[in-house]
């Protein structure tokens, strides 16, 4: 009976603690949304007025009123297409190898651990790799190709891990069923595994690409050029991309350049959010289908 007296005494305090913590935790959960809102408002307030057709179709300029991000927009487009072209086959190939082909031995574990570690390497280090490997050693110069290859190496680990997860989610029974019918390993992969894993792979890849497109650090190490007044037409041309252009404008003390930066951010966010939206829609559609 003494115990239940103590229990009763404590109960009120415990419930107060519960309520206080619950409130604090829900506030913590809201932090992200609040900051996101503040950030978007900040950017829109600063930049919306500067975002017009002239801004999209002009080259960078020392005069804020005439400046635009045409060359950066094309640079980003070039980089996006080339990076996707390089990283998709290699990334998916690696994932297929690790999940479907590799014997469970030390080499396979080494590759896997290595990929996990590469995913944690800071992006600027990839920039240094690109600078000394592609720009200098392979003499590509500060070109679009060098930039795209650098971003390829950077986004590969993320793509591989996402693709592996998607491949792993294909039920083992489906594979065994096909093997039992005499299919070779590649036939199983091509006809059974890949079709089922594709939505998951695409979702992961799009998210990885959108992450890569937003990266400024490795691109600065490759090519920090900002006053680019032509549209690159060859992969060996010099280039600039949106994040570098934005960084350059942010770094200038004059207020007008801050507004240009904000307008550039709006363009960049529109590009990235629409990529994210595609990925989310793709994933939701896929999830619904597997639940049914």
């Amino acid at each position, binding site marked *: 009976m003494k115990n239940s007296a103590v229990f009763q005494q404590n109960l009120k305090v415990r419930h107060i603690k519960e309520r206080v913590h619950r409130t604090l935790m829900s506030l913590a959960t809201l932090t992200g949304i609040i900051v996101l809102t503040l*950030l978007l408002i900040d950017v829109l307030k600063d930049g919306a007025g500067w975002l017009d057709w002239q801004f999209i179709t002009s080259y960078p300029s020392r005069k804020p009123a005439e400046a635009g991000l045409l060359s950066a927009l094309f640079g980003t487009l070039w980089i996006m297409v080339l990076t996707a072209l390089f990283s998709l086959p290699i990334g998916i190939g690696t994932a297929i190898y690790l999940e479907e082909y590799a014997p469970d031995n030390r080499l396979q574990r080494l*590759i896997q651990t290595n990929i996990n570690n590469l995913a944690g390497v800071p*992006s600027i280090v990839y920039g*240094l*790799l690109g600078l000394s490997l592609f720009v200098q050693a392979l003499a590509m110069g500060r070109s679009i190709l060098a930039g795209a290859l650098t971003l390829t190496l950077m986004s590969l680990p993320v793509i591989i891990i996402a693709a592996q997860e998607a491949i792993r989610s294909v039920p083992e029974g489906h594979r065994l069923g096909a093997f039992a019918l005499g299919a070779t390993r*590649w036939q199983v992969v091509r006809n059974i595994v890949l079709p089922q894993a594709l939505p998951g792979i695409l979702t992961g890849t799009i998210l990885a690409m959108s992450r890569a497109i937003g990266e400024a650090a490795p691109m600065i*190490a490759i090519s920090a050029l900002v006053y680019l007044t032509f549209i690159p037409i060859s992969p060996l041309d010099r280039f600039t991309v949106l994040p570098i252009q934005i960084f350059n404008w942010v*770094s200038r003390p004059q207020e007008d350049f801050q507004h240009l930066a904000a307008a550039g951010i709006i363009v960049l966010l529109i590009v990235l959010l629409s990529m994210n939206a595609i990925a989310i829609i793709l994933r939701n559609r896929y999830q619904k289908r597997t639940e049914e």
Partner: protein
Amino acid sequence: MLSGQLNPQEFPVGESFSSLRRIRQWSRLREAVINRLLFACALVSIFTTIGIVVMLVAQTVGFFSKVSPLEFFTGTKWTPLFQPQHFGVLPLVGGTLLTAGIAILIALPIGLASAVYLSEYARDKVRRVVKPSLEILAGIPTVVYGYFALTFVTPVLRNVFPNMIVFNALSAGLVMGVMIIPMVSSLSEDAMVAVPRSLRDAAYGLGATRLEVATRVVMPAAVSGIVAACILALSRAVGETMIVAIAAGSTPKLTLNPLESIQTMTAYIVQISLGETPHGTVEYYTIFAVGLLLFIMTLLMNLFSQWFVRRYREKY
């Protein structure tokens, strides 16, 4: 005998087998080629690592032929760009740790609290709104966060600390903290969700409140995943570049005062890259020495977090 009645023309055994063999030979060849191709893909990641290490080490050797390692690791002045040149990396390391420390101080409590909320309290409806918005937060480019730190957070903070410098460690650290919240939160939440229901039931059955179940059963049971998440987030903060390059300044300084302007290792690399410094000069080599140190620091943290998960994984 039954087989004797079979007419060879009706049952062309030999021909069918040889065509089958041809198909099989071809498919065996195809399998072998595909196997090699896929293996080559997997090797790209190995060569990436080798490339990073060889490239960083080779250029760092070049750097150390001109600067003594003792000065690099113990010197407290970093002035490679003007005379007299000093190559003590400690101010850059200090700036990195200061901003990353502020970030983790923000992200740890907020990220963990929201992970507990999402895994133990939130209804499905709330989760369906919060989780995608955390994903969006995680997908915002860091150059945007840098802009936010410089043009929003710094002016606000300067109302509180009027003598604060425009480029300072605090704004950059705070915003970096917000940037890594989704990482802390989603990785820890994954670890908590993996704790079996039966353990929660046992605690509820003993009269525990939701908070007590979360803090005394779920969090201890998920501790390996939570610690790993925090270390990964710290490593991410150490390697983060654009926020600090934009908002934290470019004055290498050994200080614990977050209101001062500092420079991080990553921001230094950006500063030199912006100048497109010519190949072969000492200034050019410095970024690789700093890069190697950065690479080693983040690699150690990542390896530690992987080891920690394996070592302390709970068997429920």
